[in-house]
């Protein structure tokens, strides 16, 4: 029984991992684009981005998932075909909004003197970004980023509300036939996953610890 449960939880867990990886791969770059929007000197774009981030951060992710999945069908009579696609759209947009604020905080925390030093040394804007400030930004955003990414691991459980078969959903299939313990057993999977991530981020932070500032 234990092995059977473990195997089917592992199957759910593979979906959890898929949601996690795909969300990260897409929302990390999208977040950067949004952060450029929120720092734009073109006021309408800046405001548009700020309103967008406010809406995304101001409503529950669960509501956003439901909206993406059901609203196209209700409004335009074109139901979303793939549950997974709908789910990923909601996750990517939601996490990109949070990441964009972390990026913005990191970029704005770099002292102006770093850019000016690059300028008077005749560097181009691209060189200043990649050779001077990028690593400093990464060092500064690593702690809030790891926080957010660890939250994402657990947020994947929201997928079950539109019946995507992730880890919690796999355990609940057992609850319906009278076994409750598999549900608690899922906690072990999340803990191990987050534990590994914590170690990775700890290692990265340590790697960047060779300098201060």
């Amino acid at each position, binding site marked *: 029984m234990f092995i059977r449960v473990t195997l089917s939880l592992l199957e759910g867990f593979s979906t959890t991992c898929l949601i996690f990886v795909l969300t990260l791969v897409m929302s990390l770059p999208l977040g950067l684009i949004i952060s450029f929007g929120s720092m734009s000197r073109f006021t309408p774009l800046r405001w548009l981005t700020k309103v967008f981030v406010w809406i995304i951060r101001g409503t529950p992710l669960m509501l956003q998932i439901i909206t993406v999945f059901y609203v196209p069908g209700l409004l335009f009579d074109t139901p979303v075909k793939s549950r997974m696609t709908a789910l990923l759209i909601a996750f990517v947009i939601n996490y990109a909004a949070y990441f964009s604020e972390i990026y913005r905080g990191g970029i704005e925390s770099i002292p102006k003197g770093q850019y000016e030093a690059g300028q*008077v*040394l*005749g560097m181009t804007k691209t060189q200043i970004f990649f050779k001077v400030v990028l690593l400093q930004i990464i060092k500064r955003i690593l702690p809030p980023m790891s926080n957010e990414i660890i939250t994402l691991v657990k947020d994947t459980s929201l997928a079950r509300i539109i019946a995507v078969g992730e880890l919690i959903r796999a355990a609940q299939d057992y609850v319906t036939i009278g076994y409750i313990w598999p549900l608690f057993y899922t906690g072990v999977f999340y803990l191990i996953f987050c534990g590994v991530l914590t170690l990775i981020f700890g290692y990265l932070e340590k790697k960047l610890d060779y300098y201060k500032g």
Partner: protein
Amino acid sequence: MPILEVQELEKCYGKTPVLKGINFSLNKGEVLSIIGSSGSGKTTLLRCINFLETAEKGRILVNGKTIFDADVEKPHTLEEKRQNQLMMGLVFQSFNLFPQYNVLENVSLAVKLLAKSRPGFKQNKKQIYAQIEEDARAIIDRVGLSDKLENYPCELSGGQQQRVAIARALALNPQILCFDEPTSALDPELTGEVLSVIRDLAKEHITMIIVTHEMSFAHDVSDRVIFMDDGIIAEEGAPDILFKAPKTERLRAFLSTVLSR
């Protein structure tokens, strides 16, 4: 022909005029100090000459060639601005070293990036980089930090950091080296080592503009001193004359306050 000519330079921050028509010239090998109370426009002038700020009026000529003219309709392209900035070197009050690079990397980074646009860079990359590092070591030796090549800025004292910043500016071989209050962020016991590096550069006849509050240093090192007050050059002359026999009441008042400290 002067190496640098600044003509009728004007600059406002919002509605506050900071530079109200600055004229001066500088000869090759000359050391010029700019003194004056805070808010008199010294730093702004230096930033305009280094194109960190854009003046609203006036012209800047280097070796007789106009490199900046506020009246020209066509704004300067980023590339032109970059080329202009390469003629100048600037040492900041707050050092602004790159924290993630060690001393050698801080000094050689910009030179290496610049070398990428040299013809034949790809074929000779190794030799070019080796040459750049050798030159960087020599410059770091000049500021007396040969034993700190592998150290990061956070491991250095303020005075050592500022000497690295001087080496970094020297590495690009600028026509004019500018200093913006190079010792103002330092503890008093550390100013000496930075000032002595600048004195050595003066002996080598490197053309320099130094904004400073160190009056005795300005007196010793300069060929000429400019006293700025409220956005204009109130007095200008050889240090002996300017410090010993100030003509204007403003300079007399300024000197008596700073020297009595």
